[in-house]
């Protein structure tokens, strides 16, 4: 009986998520892991923007495989998502986000995930997106470097800007990037996106 109810709930959730679009800026450690998690959850359309190609050094934390080395990250991600669930549409956009036009590819998105790297670009992206789409929830991450002390991570909600935040983390310029923490933060962002998309119906 319980199982039946759970199946129905799962089905209901998938149906809602399938009708929504999530836009992701960046397909590195945060973006690749968040995209895969959203695809597995059933989010129907995922737009991913990144200019970069997969390198061997990415494989310690990003959701790619040996066979993807040298390939555009967003193209590799599209392939991976197709293998997980062919009913999910992934729109790969091979572009470097430039200050002044960062909102270009996110018009369709119901929720936007900031999965960029440098603090300056993250901040710029948040400013531009919140100005252009003040009503679209935006989920950012700050403090993904390092390992351990995972209890420091919290969600800070600033209106419709959500920040997955470890305020005591060091910059990735001064600390390592590890699969364990990066994927926690990425999935944390994905979970906030799911919570928002299901919010009204939960």
């Amino acid at each position, binding site marked *: 009986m319980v199982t039946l109810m759970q199946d129905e709930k799962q089905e209901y959730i998938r149906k809602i998520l399938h009708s929504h679009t999530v836009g992701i800026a*960046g397909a*590195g*450690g*945060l*973006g690749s892991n968040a995209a895969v998690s959203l695809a597995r959850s059933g989010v129907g359309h995922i737009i991913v923007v990144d200019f970069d190609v997969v390198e061997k050094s990415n494989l310690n934390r990003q959701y790619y495989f040996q066979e993807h080395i040298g390939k555009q990250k967003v193209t590799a991600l599209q392939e991976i998502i197709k293998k997980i669930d062919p009913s999910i549409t992934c729109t790969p956009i091979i572009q470097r986000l430039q200050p002044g036009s960062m909102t270009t590819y996110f018009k369709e998105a119901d929720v936007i995930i900031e*999965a*960029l*790297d*440098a*603090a*300056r670009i*993250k*901040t710029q992206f*948040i*400013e531009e997106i*919140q*100005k252009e789409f003040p009503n679209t929830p935006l989920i*950012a*991450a*700050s*403090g*993904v*470097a390092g390992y351990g002390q995972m209890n420091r991570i919290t969600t*800070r909600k*600033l*209106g419709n*800007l959500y*920040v997955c*935040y*470890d*305020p005591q*983390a*060091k*910059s*990735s*310029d001064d*600390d390592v*990037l590890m699969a364990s923490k*990066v994927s926690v933060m990425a999935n944390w962002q994905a979970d906030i996106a799911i919570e928002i998309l299901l919010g009204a119906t939960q």
Partner: protein
Amino acid sequence: MSLQVNNKSITYIQDETVSDLLKRMNFTFPLVVVKINKTLIPRDSYKTTIIPKDAAIQIIHMISGG
């Protein structure tokens, strides 16, 4: 009169700008996101934006890595 900064109460100072407040809070990080009463303040307006009475302010610093 007071201000709420990251849910903590601090003294209100008349004509204080966002830059002044960041200095007063010893917020030395170069890249922050500031919201006053849920409105995002662009970085190029920190020196000209006066903080209103009883404002609720949220400050987060952005750390590289992704």
